């Protein structure tokens, strides 16, 4: 099975704080990996290092077999090739905790924006595909509405459609339901589950333990900037995993 995403010895430091202390992770095609961990464990940071919204202090990031090149400049580490970064980002779909839909465009325009302007695909073709995606996530009737008229759950589903429109090689979900009212969480999780069942490669940072157990093909548990334990849900949740993971799940269920 091919590797969609690979990070080697990823480290990230903010000032005096070492948030990531050496992460080694490979996501194979078709895997749905749930990333769990307590606040401050570095899960979101790790995800954001993959599409370079954060620049890792050390380590390698390889997406679809292509390694991201870095250079040193004035003591800081920077991506060497701006265009490589943009290209890699366009191959990854990211869904944010706070949706981040563009407020001056309708839902349909949001979904069409990147395929038309970044990938330079013809608008008519993109529009048809976009409407299909909106129907797939269940909000086709909101295509002409502005994001502020939608509920949180609808906005997040629109954001998922927007990410899918780029035909990404892998999808990154950064706590997709943490900002939603409890009643709206379900509709978003349903969509994500559907994507996992389709066989899409995805990394999902989440707090939703039951969801992780049901949907993920692999669970990765981060603690204090390193991977403390990982395995299939069956392995992890039935007394397996590490001591710290057991403590973590106990606290979540409390």
């Amino acid at each position, binding site marked *: 099975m091919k590797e969609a995403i690979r990070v080697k010895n990823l480290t990230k430091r903010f000032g005096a704080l070492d948030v990531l202390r050496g992460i080694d992770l490979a996501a194979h095609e078709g895997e749905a990996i749930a990333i769990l961990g307590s606040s401050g464990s570095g899960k979101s940071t790790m995800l954001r290092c993959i599409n370079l919204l954060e620049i890792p202090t050390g380590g390698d990031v390889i997406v679809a077999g292509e390694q991201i090149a870095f250079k040193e400049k004035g003591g800081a580490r920077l991506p060497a090739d701006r265009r490589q970064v*943009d290209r*890699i980002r*366009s191959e990854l*779909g*990211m869904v944010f905790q706070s949706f981040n*839909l563009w*407020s*001056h465009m309708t839902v349909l325009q949001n979904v069409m924006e990147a395929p038309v302007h*970044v990938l330079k695909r013809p608008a008519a073709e993109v529009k048809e595909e976009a409407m299909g995606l909106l129907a797939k996530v269940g909000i086709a009737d909101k295509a002409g509405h502005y994001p*502020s008229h939608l509920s949180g759950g609808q906005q997040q589903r629109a954001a998922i459609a927007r990410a899918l429109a780029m035909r990404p090689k892998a999808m990154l979900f950064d706590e997709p339901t943490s900002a939603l009212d409890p009643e709206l969480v379900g509709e978003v999780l349903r969509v994500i589950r559907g994507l996992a069942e389709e066989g899409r490669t995805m990394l999902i940072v989440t707090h939703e333990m039951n969801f992780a157990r049901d949907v993920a093909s692999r669970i990765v548990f981060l603690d204090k900037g390193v991977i403390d334990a990982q395995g299939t849900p069956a392995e992890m949740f039935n007394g397996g995993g590490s001591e710290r993971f057991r403590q973590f799940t106990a606290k979540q269920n409390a």
Partner: protein
Amino acid sequence: MNYFELMGFGPNGWGLPMIQAATMTLRVALAAFVVGLALGGLGAWAKLSGSRFARGAADVYTTVIRGIPDLLVIYLFYFGGSAVLGAIGKWFGATGFVGMPAFATGAIAVGLVSGAYQTEVLRGAFMAIAKGELEAARAVGMPPLLMFRRIIVPQVARYAIPGLGNVWQLILKESALISVTGLVELLRQAQIGAGSTRQPFYFFLTAAALYLVLTTLSTIIFERLETRAMRGVRRA
């Protein structure tokens, strides 16, 4: 002559010159607005940039302009510009006072002043954009220029409309000061008419009424623009 004959469009009426002068007011105000927009864009970019020098320079610009009377700025450009033109003229053998073109003087001077205010308006409008939206643009692989064109500019335009409407009203009214350069905009025309007919009250009253028409129309137009621009935004 009664008021209506005076301001009418008959053979002795001043109606037409007054209206023409009002269009001159609009023209010089528009020119000043464009100059101010360019300066404001530059200033806002400087204030938001990482460079301490750029930020410092922009701060000096806005602080100085906001503390000095516009009339003084106009005198600077008019007399200072004339001095420069006179020096250039002397090179070519001309003597005497070469007056700065009044329209340019007025537009640049008032534009320079409004640029300081437009800097703050544009800067505030940029800061009103949700940071997450910019992040989403980056996450989808948008290069910076594309992001600027598709995400930043449209949103800055929206949020800046109320502030820019204020600045426009300011420019319209300050344009009356340009009359000191001799440019025949509305106030100067009223002065000319008043001097000629010895009926200053009627002329300045008409000028005031015409200014009122201009400012009121501007308010209506900007309110329309604001409603249209804000149709996607839920206000706090």
